[in-house]
């Protein structure tokens, strides 16, 4: 098998394993198995055994990162949202647009609770009472996805809404700067916004 084909297969397998690693409901043992595979495949992709081992180790350390609390609410009516952001009804298509994404506190340590917040607008044609929105968040480091922290379908009334998710920082989470990308999608419209936090040593 040539090197190119091997890399393609590795990419496919790696994405499958990353997904399995990311599912919050899974046991730590199963997650660790997936993470080991990620490490091996990362090594193949980068031709570096060290990089592979690093990726695998990071993934294992994140196995304990799970949702601690989830809170969602409508914060603005359609009229309030329009007034605040200067858009006008009626519209002809459904749009979702993130207005703000935060991670608080900016610096955390093992055992701390990290609050990930997002505020977004839901815009839809007149007569639409609510829309289905998929809210997701992915943890990244150095541009690489490490773990899907949350994926949940919600039904949103039009206007402005916020969601807040708490995570407990696991003991073995490596120090460094992380990015949590938050995404909302409704139909073909989607938006992504990053929030940065630092895990101190």
């Amino acid at each position, binding site marked *: 098998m040539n090197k190119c084909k091997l890399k393609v297969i590795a990419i496919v397998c790696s*994405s499958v394993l990353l997904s399995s690693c990311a599912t919050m409901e899974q046991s730590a043992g199963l997650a660790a198995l997936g993470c080991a595979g990620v490490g091996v495949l990362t090594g193949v992709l980068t031709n570096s055994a060290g990089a592979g081992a690093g990726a695998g180790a990071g993934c294992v350390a994140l196995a304990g990162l799970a949702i601690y609390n989830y809170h969602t609410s409508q914060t603005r009516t359609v009229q309030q949202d329009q007034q605040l*952001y*200067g*858009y*006008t*009804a*009626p*519209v*002809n*298509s459904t*749009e*979702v*647009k*993130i207005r703000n994404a935060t991670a608080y506190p900016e610096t955390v340590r093992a055992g701390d609770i990290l609050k990930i917040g997002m505020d977004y607008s839901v*815009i839809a044609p007149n007569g639409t009472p609510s829309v289905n929105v998929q809210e*997701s968040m*992915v943890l990244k480091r150095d541009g690489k*996805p490490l773990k899907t922290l949350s994926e949940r379908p919600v039904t949103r009334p039009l206007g402005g809404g916020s969601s807040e998710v708490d995570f407990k920082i696991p003991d073995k989470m490596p120090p460094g700067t992380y990015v949590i*990308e938050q*995404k909302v*999608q409704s139909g*073909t*419209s*989607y*938006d*992504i916004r990053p929030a940065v936090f630092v895990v101190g040593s």
Partner: protein
Amino acid sequence: MRKRQGVGALMPLLFVGMSVAVAGMPVAPCDHKQAAIEISLQRIVNEWPMRGSGESVSQYVQKLGIRLAFSSLYGRNIPWQFWVVRNLAPNAFSIGGGYVFITDGAVNFVRNESELAAILAHELGHELAGHFCVAPDLIDFGGLFDIFSAPKTQQHQVGVGSLTQVIDPVKEQQADQIAVTILQASGYDSHAMLEVARRLPKGDGVHPVDFQRLRALESLLAKIPPIKAQDSEDFLTIKRTLAAEQATW
């Protein structure tokens, strides 16, 4: 913030260059529409999720758009700004004032760089032809033209977001003609225009086949031999970036 350039004083000279560069399409100064165009821009930015100007996809589209625009003399005097909308449905449109919008879905949709250039060139064609200058004031909006909505036999309007989209079959064909000229001058395969038009999603009610436009393109391109245009490394990188983004989510 981009500095907008006034071109009114240069317009008589630019018309001459334009008539050569874009196959005789008329151009008119559009200063009287600028306020309405800026309002439309704000409305779009406030309503729709957009990629940031610093993102690699946005920077690539801006670079490609500028390359295409600079192939015409008049195009060099318009303060072009290309925006990428976070939407998975293939679409592209322009609102005048040099503002051109393309969705992630359109970048995903194309099979090669010439096809992406063709989509942008069509939107440039509307601007270079002066279509926004003569567009009627539609509910406090200066006009919007969309490459993926097939024109019917007569001008009609459809809604996009809270804006009104003007579909005029004559203007769509004019934009196609200019786009072909731009593609030739830029070194892209102008036959990509036809490929894109033929491959548009069919039967979904949004992209009905416009046989008249296809025939006009076929006739125009019959005199132009296709060329083998190599995809740039930037284009291939952007395609990989979008694929990786989608795999992440």
